[in-house]
């Protein structure tokens, strides 16, 4: 059958191994991935592989201006061009034109102001960011469509653009949404305790302004949609690079006046999601299906890379004014933070990003007093929605930097100040008394941070580096520094996901779940969860994800929740099928279920090898063509199960890095990178490592290479990979990982999410390590990303100062 699975034992910390008790023997193993053969031989279906008879191609005319009154759109020349089948502007959409839905309403926070303005399918009256779609052209080929786009006459009266986040609330700033009296999208205050009282007793109060700038998600596959309307069947099929096929299906059905059963959304293989593909009801997503119905022909739109810099959402811009108060031992008395978060031109995603910042700032620490306030603002830039980390990195950056500054002021080692503030295992579950993005109170479920820090310091030989290696290198004139940072990640949020497991008559198992896959390895990890209880290997399970015709209840793949929520549903469904298998086998073999054992694709009476039946035979018996069945019998060996956690579970980790800076070029060389990670029980350690590696690479990008640069006119200056720098193979080091495990009590398998973790603490780590490398005269690094350019300038500044 298949190769023996490699077992990797994750060291256990604390609670017993409930996962094995729950009957999931493949947990913690790393079999070869089920999806790789298709992916590596080019036979996997991606959206652009879809070719239908009579298919037409779509291109969009987009705004060149960041802010303006749209006075008119003239499509006559575009329509007259050869090859063009149709052209539409906002006016032509008639009653179909409507702003998108608010995807995430604000949590029930007491001190909250919220003013929602969501994106529109095609600009009408105003354009609010460069790249906002103004007209849609459908033609025989993409080339002809783009030629026609050049013929669209757009009459825009430019208005002063609000490009800088800090200017959006200034007196006299141009108003982006005329229905509001300012560019404020939301104002939220969350607090516990009393910061001022606490800070009055402080031995040190350290405050700074921190700034983090925009980055793109840059997936290897851009967005794409194919829509096909079958008039006779009354059915719409949409292939979409979405992380949320089921909500898209539901929304499109509603918008187009179709029953949900007659709309099928397929999220096939997708080359990376990272958050912007969970943004829903993008203009293109809403318009392609409509166009397919209007024209009675399939239509396709594939985003090109330059388009993606405007048309796909982005994230990361925040400015924090934060302060920490500590006692003489470095123990946190309180933190106060006031920040501005950029929403871009619209706000379809609510408060997820800034609330994640607010909550994740608390980190692994005991923070008795906390005041956090933010203003989310509209600007004339592309829309902001979560990108891997989704605001958590900002909280981590602020807290970790404040601790470093406090440590410096008090003369305490940076790892020691963190250790002194860690929550200890007996303090769990730990209620932070503020609300998290899932509307539930921020309560950490489990964690044990000190052993993780110990292990990280051991792996990177922190003491040895400080005592001998660093001094020796410094004496030789080398700029080498070490950084160690800590973070938590609230993962596995609800509301729920579901899965259906069936044993087929050929003995293989089908597993279908509603979430989609964008490279996480679900075809293997979920297969492991289904195979385990049925005594099979992961290779015996065929997994379907992201097809609303096959499974139609659920939300999607986001917020590091796939493994936790869909995974537990897969497991629960497999357990239910196991019960049916045992009952069917007990009946067939004339034995009690307790005397049966399941393994090797069959069920056997324990100790009696010839009283045995394969799963396939049992499946056939369970679906007879003739005869009578007992009342209450369900056909087949199939079960559907759902899982919805009470609230988020708390993953955590430590990242440590040694880096060297070239004193002449300011280029960096990462000599060691260590991750000690706790995501509870691990389904497949190879996949978890993959997630961490990818996250770290993304974090390295956000720290030192990737920055979306806008000018004062709201124009994006680097909408291509020439100038938007992604880390390359030489920029990402070998990453040494180790897993610890504090199982989550919030789900039967004890797992926690890991999808975003790698990206979260990296900016804080870079800041610390670079300051350390530059030595005592180092400038404070309070902004991310840096870049070779900026680091060079900082170092020049240092040199000038030391010369004086």
């Amino acid at each position, binding site marked *: 059958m298949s190769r023996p699975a490699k077992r990797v034992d994750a060291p256990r910390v604390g609670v017993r191994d409930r996962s094995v008790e729950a009957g999931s023997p493949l947990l913690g193993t790393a079999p070869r991935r089920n999806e790789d053969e298709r992916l590596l031989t080019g036979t996997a279906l991606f959206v652009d592989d879809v070719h239908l008879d009579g298919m037409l191609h779509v291109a969009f005319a987009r705004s*060149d*201006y960041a802010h303006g009154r749209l006075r008119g759109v003239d499509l006559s020349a575009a329509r007259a061009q050869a090859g063009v089948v149709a052209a539409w502007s906002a006016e032509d959409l008639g009653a179909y034109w409507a702003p998108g839905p608010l995807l995430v309403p604000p949590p029930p926070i007491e001190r909250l102001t919220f003013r929602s303005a969501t994106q529109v399918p095609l600009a009408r009256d105003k354009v609010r960011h460069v790249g906002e779609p103004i007209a849609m052209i459908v033609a025989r080929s993409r080339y002809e469509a783009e030629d026609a786009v050049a013929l669209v006459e757009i009459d825009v009266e430019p208005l002063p653009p609000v490009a800088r986040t800090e200017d959006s609330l200034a007196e006299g700033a141009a108003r982006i949404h005329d229905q509001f009296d300012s560019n404020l999208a939301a104002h939220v205050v969350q607090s516990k305790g009393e910061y001022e009282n606490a800070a009055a007793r402080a031995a040190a109060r350290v405050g700074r302004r921190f700034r983090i700038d925009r980055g793109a998600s840059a997936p290897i596959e851009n967005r794409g949609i194919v829509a096909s309307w079958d008039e006779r069947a009354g059915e719409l099929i949409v292939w979409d690079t979405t992380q949320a096929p089921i909500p898209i299906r539901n929304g499109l059905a509603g918008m187009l006046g179709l029953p949900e059963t007659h709309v099928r959304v397929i999220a096939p293989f997708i080359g990376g999601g990272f958050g912007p593909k969970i943004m829903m009801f993008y203009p293109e997503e809403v318009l392609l299906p409509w166009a397919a119905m209007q024209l009675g022909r399939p239509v396709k739109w594939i985003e090109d890379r330059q388009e993606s*810099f405007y048309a796909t959402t982005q994230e990361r811009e925040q400015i924090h004014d934060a302060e920490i108060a500590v006692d003489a031992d470095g123990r946190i008395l309180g933190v106060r933070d006031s920040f501005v978060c950029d929403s871009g031109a619209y706000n379809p995603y609510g408060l997820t990003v800034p609330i994640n910042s607010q909550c994740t700032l608390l980190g692994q620490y005991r923070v008795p007093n906390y005041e956090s306030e933010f203003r989310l603002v509209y600007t004339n830039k592309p829309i902001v929605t979560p990108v891997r980390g989704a605001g958590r990195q900002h909280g981590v950056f602020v807290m970790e930097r404040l601790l470093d500054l406090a440590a410096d002021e008090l003369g305490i080692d940076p790892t020691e100040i963190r250790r002194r503030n860690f929550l200890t295992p007996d303090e769990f579950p730990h209620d932070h008394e503020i609300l998290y993005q899932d509307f539930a109170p921020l309560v950490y479920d489990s964690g044990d941070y000190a052993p993780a820090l110990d292990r990280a310091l051991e792996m990177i030989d922190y003491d040895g580096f400080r005592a001998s290696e660093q001094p020796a290198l410094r004496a030789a004139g080398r700029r080498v520094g070490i950084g160690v940072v800590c973070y938590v990640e609230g993962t596995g949020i609800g509301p729920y996901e579901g899965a259906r497991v069936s044993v087929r008559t050929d003995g293989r198992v089908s597993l279908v779940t509603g979430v989609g896959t964008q490279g996480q390895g679900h075809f293997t990890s979920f297969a492991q969860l289904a195979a385990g209880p049925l005594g099979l290997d992961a290779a015996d399970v065929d997994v379907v994800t992201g097809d609303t015709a096959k499974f139609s209840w659920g939300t999607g793949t986001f917020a590091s929740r796939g493994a936790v929520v869909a995974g537990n549903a897969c497991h629960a469904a497999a357990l239910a099928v196991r019960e049916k298998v045992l009952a069917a086998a007990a009946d067939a073999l004339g034995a009690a279920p307790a005397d049966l054992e399941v393994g090797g694709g069959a069920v056997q009476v324990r100790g009696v090898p010839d009283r045995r039946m394969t799963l396939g035979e049992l499946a056939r018996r369970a679906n007879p063509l003739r005869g009578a069945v007992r009342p209450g019998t369900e056909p087949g060996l199939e079960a559907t199960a759902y899982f919805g956690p009470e609230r988020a579970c708390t993953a955590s980790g430590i990242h440590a890095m040694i880096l060297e800076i070239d004193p002449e070029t300011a280029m960096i060389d990462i000599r060691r990178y260590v991750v000690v990670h706790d995501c509870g029980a691990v389904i497949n350690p190879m996949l978890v490592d993959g997630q961490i590696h990818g996250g770290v690479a993304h974090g390295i990008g956000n720290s030192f290479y990737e920055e979306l640069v806008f*000018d004062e006119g709201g*124009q*994006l*200056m680097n909408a291509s990979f*020439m100038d938007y720098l992604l880390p390359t193979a030489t920029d990402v080091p070998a990453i040494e990982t180790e897993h610890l495990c504090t199982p989550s009590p919030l789900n039967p398998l004890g797992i926690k999410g890991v999808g975003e973790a790698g990206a979260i603490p990296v900016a804080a780590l870079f800041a610390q390590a670079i300051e350390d490398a530059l030595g005592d005269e180092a400038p404070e690094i309070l902004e991310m990303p840096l870049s070779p350019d900026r680091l060079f300038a900082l170092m020049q500044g240092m040199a000038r100062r030391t010369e004086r």
Partner: protein
Amino acid sequence: MVIEAEYLFAAGRETVWEALQDPDVLVQALPGTERLERVDGHVYAGEMVVGVGPVTAARFDISVELTDLVPPEAFTMLVGGDGRAGFVDGRADVRLEEKGARCLMRYRADLRVGGPVAALGHRLLDSVGRSMSRRGLEAVDRMIGPGS
């Protein structure tokens, strides 16, 4: 984008002033201009093809207007260009001074650039802008000659 520079013509100030009112000369001052016609008074319209980095042959519909004329010493040129590769919008404030028998032109151009030409060519906009201005003025200089 702001470009501030100066250029010393061979000819004298009066000659240079007269020449700059002529659309056939102005065409030379804006390299890549394929066509520039007087619409009315000091307003001109035409077409221009520009290359900035990877944007190799961006075609723009341009309009040029000369205002605030103080002969022979100063004027302002308002420029607008719109095309598939984006837009350019701005003004150039020009002063003509006498330097001996020759004309010294000082100018300050303040341009907003948007769309793909800004997004893809940003790194080069400054240098392309300067080199275009210089080439244009050199062409005008050659056309006018030492003048009278």
